[in-house]
C-alpha cells in the first residue's frame, strides 16, 4: 500500500497493534515467558535514552508548573539600560536586547509551550480518535469518505495551512494560546488518525471481537472494551511524538509573528518570541539566541525521544 509509505518522519516505522498474546523472543529464552507489555517495560527499563528523555520531559513539565522554583528573578522585569549586559551572580546568562534576564525568561517560557503542547494533543487526539475509530470500525462508505478527508488534509503542507489559518484567526486581535492550539489541533491529526484506524482494523478482525458480537455486545461495548484498548499503545506513542512536534510548531508560528503575540509590557513569554527577538542582534550578542534555543530544542527532543523509545519497546518487528 503506497499510502503507508507516504507518512512523514515520525511514522516512518509503522506501529502495529500489540496483541495480548505472549511473545517469546529467541535468544532471550531464559526465565518464564513474558507478556508483550512486561517485555516492553523490561526493554524500557534498560534503555538509557528512555530514562534521559523521561527525566527531561518531567523537568520541563515541573518548570512549566512552578517556574519560580528554578529562578528567583522576574522575567518581565526588563530595563533597557542593561541591554545585552553580561552575566552576573543574579542573572546567570546575562540580559537580552530588551534588558530582560535571559535565563528567567527561558524558564518561564516553558509554561506556554507545555500548555500549547498538551492542549493541542488533546484536540488532535480527540479528532484522530473519532475519525479513526469510526472509519476503521464501520468501514464501507464512512471509511471511504473519512479516508479521502484525511488524504486532503495530508495534501496541504501543515505549516502553510497553519500560516493561512493563524493569520486569519489572529487578525485584529491579540491572539492567546487558543488560536495556536486550534491551528495545530485541526491540522495535525492525520498521522494519529491513520495509526488509530489501522490498529482498529487489525483488532476488529480478531476472533474475540466476533465472539463478543455473537454474545450480543453492542457497537459501543465492542469499541470501548475490545477494540480501543488495542489501539491505545500506538496511540499514546503518536501523541507523545505529536506533543514534541506541537511545541515546535507553536514556536515556529510565534517566530513568524502569527502564533503567540507579544503583549506590550513583556509579560507574554514564549521561546519563539525570544528567539525571533534575538535573531536580528546575533552579531552583538548570541546568548539571547542560544539559551531559549537550547530550552526549546531539549524540550522537543525529549518528548520525541520518549515517544521513540516507547515505540521501539512496543514494536516487536524492530527487534
Amino acid at each position, binding site marked *: 500500500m503506497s499510502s503507508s509509505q507516504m507518512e*512523514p518522519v515520525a511514522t516512518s516505522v509503522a506501529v502495529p497493534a500489540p496483541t495480548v498474546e505472549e511473545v517469546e523472543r529467541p535468544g532471550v529464552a531464559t526465565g518464564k515467558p513474558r507478556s508483550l507489555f512486561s517485555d516492553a517495560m523490561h526493554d524500557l527499563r534498560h534503555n538509557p535514552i528512555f530514562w534521559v528523555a523521561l527525566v527531561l520531559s518531567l523537568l520541563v513539565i515541573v518548570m512549566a508548573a512552578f517556574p519560580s522554583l528554578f529562578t528567583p528573578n522576574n522575567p518581565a522585569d526588563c530595563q533597557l539600560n542593561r541591554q545585552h549586559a553580561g552575566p552576573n551572580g543574579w542573572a546567570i546568562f546575562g540580559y537580552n536586547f530588551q534588558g530582560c534576564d535571559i535565563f528567567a525568561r527561558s524558564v518561564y517560557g516553558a509554561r506556554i509551550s507545555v500548555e500549547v503542547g498538551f492542549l493541542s494533543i488533546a484536540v488532535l487526539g480527540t479528532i484522530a480518535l473519532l475519525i479513526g475509530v469510526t472509519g476503521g470500525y464501520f468501514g464501507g462508505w464512512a471509511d471511504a469518505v473519512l479516508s479521502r478527508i484525511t488524504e486532503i488534509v495530508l495534501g496541504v503542507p501543515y505549516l502553510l495551512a497553519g500560516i493561512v489559518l493563524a493569520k486569519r484567526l489572529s487578525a485584529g486581535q491579540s491572539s492567546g494560546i487558543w488560536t495556536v492550539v486550534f491551528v495545530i489541533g485541526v491540522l495535525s491529526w492525520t498521522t494519529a488518525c491513520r495509526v488509530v484506524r489501522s490498529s482498529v482494523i487489525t483488532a476488529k478482525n480478531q476472533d474475540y471481537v466476533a465472539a463478543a458480537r455473537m454474545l450480543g455486545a453492542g457497537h459501543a461495548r465492542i469499541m470501548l472494551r475490545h477494540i480501543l484498548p488495542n489501539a491505545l499503545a500506538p496511540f499514546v506513542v503518536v501523541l507523545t511524538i505529536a506533543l514534541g512536534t506541537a511545541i515546535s510548531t507553536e514556536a*515556529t508560528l510565534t517566530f*513568524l509573528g502569527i502564533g503567540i503575540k507579544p503583549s506590550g509590557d513583556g509579560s507574554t513569554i514564549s521561546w519563539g518570541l525570544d528567539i525571533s527577538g534575538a535573531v536580528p542582534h546575533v552579531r552583538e550578542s548570541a546568548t539571547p539566541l542560544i539559551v531559549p534555543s537550547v530550552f526549546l530544542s531539549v524540550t522537543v527532543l525529549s518528548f520525541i525521544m520518549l515517544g521513540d523509545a516507547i515505540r521501539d519497546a512496543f514494536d516487536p518487528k524492530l527487534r
Partner: protein
Amino acid sequence: MFRYIVRRLLQGVLTFFGATFIVYALMFANQDDPLQALAGERPVTPAVRQYLTDYYHLNDPFLKQYGYYMKGLLTGDLGQSIGRNRPIKDLLMDAWPITLKLSIIAIIFAALLGVTAGVVAGIRRAGVFDYVTLLIALFLISLPFIVLAPMAQYLFGVELKIFPVTTGGNPSLYKLLLPGMALGTVALAVTLRLTRTSVTENLRADYVRTARAKGLSRQRIIGVHVLRNSLIPIITYLGVSLGDLMAGAIITEGVFNIPGVGFNLFQGIRTEDGPRVVGFVSVLVIIFIITNLVVDILYAVLDPRIRYE
C-alpha cells in the same frame, strides 16, 4: 499498474480541489470583514478595499468566489500585492529560481550524506557508528528550523566566519551553500534513518543470500542489489519531504535574508500582506500535490509490487 496510476490520478484531482478549497475557505469563509483580515493592522484605503473586493469577488456567493479563485490560480493570475504594489505573479517569478537553487543544494546535501552514512550504519548495525549516527539523526530531526537556521548562521557565519552571515539579493551559489545545508539537515537525518532501516532489512532478504551463494563480491551485493532496493523508500520520502522543505525555506530564507519564495511569504506574514500570503501558499500547495503525485507514480514504476489496495 495502469489501474493504480488511474486511481492515484483521480485521488490527486480530489486532493487538489479539496486542498485549494481548504486554503481558500480558511481565509475567506464566515468572515465579518475578510478585507481587514487580509490587510491585518494596516489601514485599508477605499481604493484597496475596492480592488480586493473586485479581485476576490467578495460580493458573490462563496462557491462562486472559490470558482473565480481557482480560475485565477490556473491561469496564473494571483492578484496584486497590497504591500509592494506589484502583481504577485511577478514576485513569484523573481523568487522561484533562488528557492529552486536552495532546495537543490539541500536535497543533494541530504541525499549524498544521508545515503552514504545510512548504508554504512546499516551494514555495521549495532556498531559504534550506527549508534552515534542514530543519536545525531534523532537530535537533528527534533531540532526546529527556528533553532537550526539562526544557530547555523551564528556558528558558521558570525563565529567561524566560513560563510557570509546574510545572503542578500542575487545570491551566488557559494552564498547559498550554508542556508542550503541548514535547510537540508532534517531531510538528511530522515534519509539516514530510512536508508539504515531498509539496508538492514534488505541484507536479510533471500535475494542477498542467493547473490552471496553465487559468489558475488560484497561490493556488488551492496552497491547494486541492496542499494537499489533500499533507495525506493527514500525517493518516496524526498517527495513527501518537500512539504517540510517549504516550511523550512520560510524560516531559512527569512533568517538569511534570501529573496526567494519563502522570504516572500515570511515578509508577507510580517507586513500583513494577505493577498501575497494566500497566493504564495496556494501555489506551494499545488506544487506539493503535483510532486507527490509524480513521486507516487514513479514509485509504482520503480517497484512493480506496489498495487493500490
